[in-house]
């Protein structure tokens, strides 16, 4: 049996996201940036957590545990550290050692040497780091480009369904996107591609995916 040290392992990922992530899923030892969408970050945590991995959320006091549970994240294996204070780096490094996946708020300042050390530790421990907020040094940046809600009218109804256009940008500038529903991210849909939804396409404008009654935005 030969251990593959160079090729990084793939963590279980929600199928809807696995399609657009480089390498076909969350890679252990990599870092991902999620541009201001806690929903997307939770969807990334959900895959590993459902298979028994420990997750940790550092410096995100607004993280909703109830929504996390809705995504299938096991709350018993979820650690919250809302306020690491000035010890952001040492806390993150200590947790990278023990848990499989760490979600952090993008640090305001991190010296390149410190980032390199953290990165080495990630690779050594086989953990994945997700930063909430833009983060240039990350291996891949995910974001919600478009979003539409269904179920809400003018003073009536309530939010029911959401469809999102999710983009994944690699450092090379290569962009992939997918149209997914919230239920798909939550794993309540079985992850199959919806009929008529060309899920993969490099830079293909597929705005017609949104049904007419859904609001479209740019």
């Amino acid at each position: 049996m030969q251990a593959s040290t160079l090729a990084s392992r793939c963590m279980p990922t929600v199928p809807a996201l696995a399609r657009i992530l480089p390498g076909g899923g969350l890679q252990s030892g990599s870092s991902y940036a999620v541009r201001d969408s806690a929903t997307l970050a939770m969807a990334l945590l959900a895959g590993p957590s459902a298979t028994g991995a420990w997750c940790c959320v550092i410096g995100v006091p607004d993280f909703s545990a109830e929504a996390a549970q809705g995504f299938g994240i096991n709350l018993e294996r979820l650690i919250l550290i809302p306020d690491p204070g000035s010890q952001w780096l040492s806390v993150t490094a200590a947790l990278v050692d023990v848990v499989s996946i760490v979600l952090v708020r993008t640090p305001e300042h991190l010296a390149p040497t410190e980032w390199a050390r953290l990165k080495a530790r990630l690779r050594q421990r086989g953990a994945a780091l997700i930063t909430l907020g833009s983060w240039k040094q990350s291996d891949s940046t995910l974001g919600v480009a478009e979003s539409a809600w269904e179920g809400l009218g003018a003073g009536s109804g309530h939010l029911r369904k959401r469809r999102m256009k999710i983009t994944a940008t690699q450092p090379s500038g290569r962009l992939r996107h997918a149209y997914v529903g919230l239920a798909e991210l939550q794993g309540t849909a079985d992850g199959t591609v919806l009929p008529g939804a060309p899920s993969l396409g490099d830079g293909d404008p597929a705005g017609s995916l949104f049904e007419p009654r859904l609001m479209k935005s740019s």
Partner: protein
Amino acid sequence: MRSTLPAAPTATRTLMFWCPDWPVTAALREHALPADTALVLVERGEVFACSPAARQDGVRRGLRIREAQARSTGLVSLAYDASLDERAFEPVTAAVETIMPGVQVIRPGLCAIRVKGPARYYGSEEKTAGVVVDTLAAIGLTDVRIGVADGPFAAEQAARATDQLDDDAAPVVVIPPGGSPWFLSSYPLEVLEQPKLTVLLKRLGIRSLGDFAALRASDVRNRFGLEGAVAHRQAGGLDHHDVVARTPPPQLDAVADFEPPLARIDQLAFTMRTRAAAFIDTLRGAGLVCTALHVSLHTESGEVSARRWQHPRWFDADDVVDRVRWQLQGANASDHGLTSGITRVHLVPDVVEDLGDHADGLWGTGPDESIHHGLARVQSMLGHGAVLTAVIAGGRLLADRRVLIPWGDVPAGSQSPGPPARERDQPWPGRLPGPAPATVFADPRPAVVVDARGNPVDVDPRGLLSADPAFFSAGSDGGQRPVHSWAGPWPISERWWDPKGRALHRFQLVDQSGSAWLLLLEDHAWWVEASYD
């Protein structure tokens, strides 16, 4: 069904010492109350035990607590804690064990000693009893009754018979050898504490223990079976119980006294390091691990800070030092200064479990072990309350539904549904329908919602909206966003009978960019509760 008697009847000369109202005495000593306090211990809303002062006011066991309070003004009522009885009795047993071996604790407050050896050493049974009284008086226990007789049952009755003695006489009743049947003969049958047998015997015309003992043993056995035979022996001054001396338990708790008092936390942590290691080593030596720890800190000014700490696995020496430190940091706002110096640290293992149940497997106990180590490290960096796990509780507002528990306070992986989990299953009218928002602001952010003319939107007391919301600005970014679709107001009225109750209205808004927001309107002010980002 034929069955044999448990053991041959013995007549072991027994000294029984009895502390009347032990639960009350224990509670008085624990809470350092004066002896003449009118105190009741309450269990399930009824008086379980009461102090002499309360009894004088007419309080009795079994009264409702309201009734007891009506009878005795200034009544102090505490919850009854059975473990406190045993904990407080431990020093008493230990004190007696230092002067004579073979103490059997029948229950907290009542102890039997085989008196033959001590009587030979001290000269006589009376002198032995006197020594016991003096020893217990030395640890501050003045109300002790002693009875000496041929068996534990007779000795207990003798100890209770000290009530009839004069106040100034020593509270000791010694029944001479062979005199127990005579001593017991005048007692009513109720002291046997066998209600069914008592009723039956009374209907047969037998009224006292003497009458009962006069029956032939074989007849009693044939008619009343095993229980009757045992009671018959007790009535005759014999006893099938022998005095079984306890083995004194190993001293597991640790006390560290500091002279001069320590004024800094880091000093204390440094000094505690070796004490904690010795404490853990003692436990390890007894084949035990500690999973819950009781730490009490005594300061120079007389304050006591006591807290129970749980551990997801079991405490090692560093964990103990951390808990002592956190307890101090939690009690004081500042990190290093204390209000007064620490004079004593008392570590009591609250729950101990067998080392074998917690031993590491040959290839380790699995991946979770490293998690515990890692999180313990982070906790010692940031403090106990900084590393949290979340539990979903019941509630209408999203912030209420999230309960954060410090890591280690609830054993990880336990499936026992606590109060939050039970509350969660209640219907909670007014809770949020649909998917839960991913970002719930720990502190709601102020927002502004205006209608098409730019006037603030409000809800009148009848729950009607003044105008449809057209623009809103949420929190930091400040810019006005056009409202694309919205729903509300959804009224939430919590605890209208309570001044702290809240009445508010909830709205869902979707702006032109497709982001959805959850807004609250309370007292004409808008807040962003959560964001579906």
